[in-house]
């Protein structure tokens, strides 16, 4: 069964699930609305044997982006007016990569959520064991809350860390080690 056939079957239940315009690498890439993230992954796991969650990560799409596509801090181009980029959006994008180990097929699912304090998506905890630590890492770096995660606390940085380091507007506040 190809990715497009799976997508067609899923779209019958979840009309919000669409194919992304820009695929991630060569993977079939879909955009999934936040409210149906959990049910889509449940269906993918139970009906289509996508049993391995490779990656949960996120992107902060805000801020000026230079023509090469690399984000650039406004502080770098001091004085120069930061040109608004067509790709800059005020969203967080949570990115999931799942694999069906039996067939080797790999899917990329993206979920766009408004960029704000306390932005949240449903947790995949309970569907994939791997979601536990990876969602904690995304929470640690981006401050995205995963609803339903039983132990959502910082995993890599220390407990006293202020702010979320991979956000574009992160500013480091000196702590006792600086």
């Amino acid at each position, binding site marked *: 069964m190809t990715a497009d056939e799976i997508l067609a079957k899923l779209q019958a239940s979840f009309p919000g699930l669409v194919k992304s315009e820009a695929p991630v690498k060569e993977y079939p890439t879909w955009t999934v609305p936040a409210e149906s993230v959990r049910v889509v992954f449940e269906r993918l796991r139970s009906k289509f044997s996508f049993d391995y969650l490779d990656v949960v990560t996120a992107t902060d799409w805000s801020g000026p982006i230079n023509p090469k596509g690399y984000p650039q801090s406004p502080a770098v181009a001091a004085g120069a007016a930061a040109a608004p980029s067509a790709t800059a959006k005020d969203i967080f994008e949570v990115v999931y990569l799942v694999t069906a180990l039996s067939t080797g097929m790999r899917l990329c699912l993206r979920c766009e959520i408004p960029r704000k304090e306390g932005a949240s998506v449903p947790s995949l905890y309970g569907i994939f064991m791997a979601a536990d630590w990876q969602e904690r890492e995304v929470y640690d770096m981006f401050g995205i809350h995963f609803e339903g995660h039983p132990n959502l606390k910082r995993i*890599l*940085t*220390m407990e006293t*860390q202020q702010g979320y*380091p991979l956000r574009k507007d992160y500013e*480091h506040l000196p702590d*006792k*080690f600086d």
Partner: protein
Amino acid sequence: MGIVLDNLSKIESLPGGGLALATSDSLINWARTSSVWPLTFGLACCAIEMMAAYASRFDFERMGVFPRPTPRQADVMFVAGTVSKKMADPIIRIYKQMPEPKFVIAMGGCANCGGPFYDSYAVVKGVDRIIPVDVYLPGCPPRPEALMYAVIKLQEKMRKMTVKGGLGATPLQAAGSRKLI
């Protein structure tokens, strides 16, 4: 038993043999410099070079450097690698568990000053911000020979310690080891 006394300065063999005289400083320092026992403790890629130094090609043990698995038995801590802020508290704790006199070798650019992570949000910019350091060893990572050279430098430092000076904790240690954050 074939104990080599060449390095023991101020030794005096009495005629007839069977008895040797030496100052207590030189005896203690001879023992201390001949058994620099480090803690088995590595943080990042510098630890790979440290392991290579322990292994057969470089054979650190011929210098008396024999890794100990517990801080209670260790004399020196090689801080081999990047000190993340989350690791800072365990390092202080381990350092406090080591018996006096204790020494620290900061191995590699990261442990010296943060190295390539000098502006990171998560890295301590030099382990000397949290514990006193005796020998700074530059390199990224330093070769095993360089680590041996650092131990030789530390041995030079140990030879200057005296019983009179409170069994020597170096001035740095005497001041620093009780002023940890």
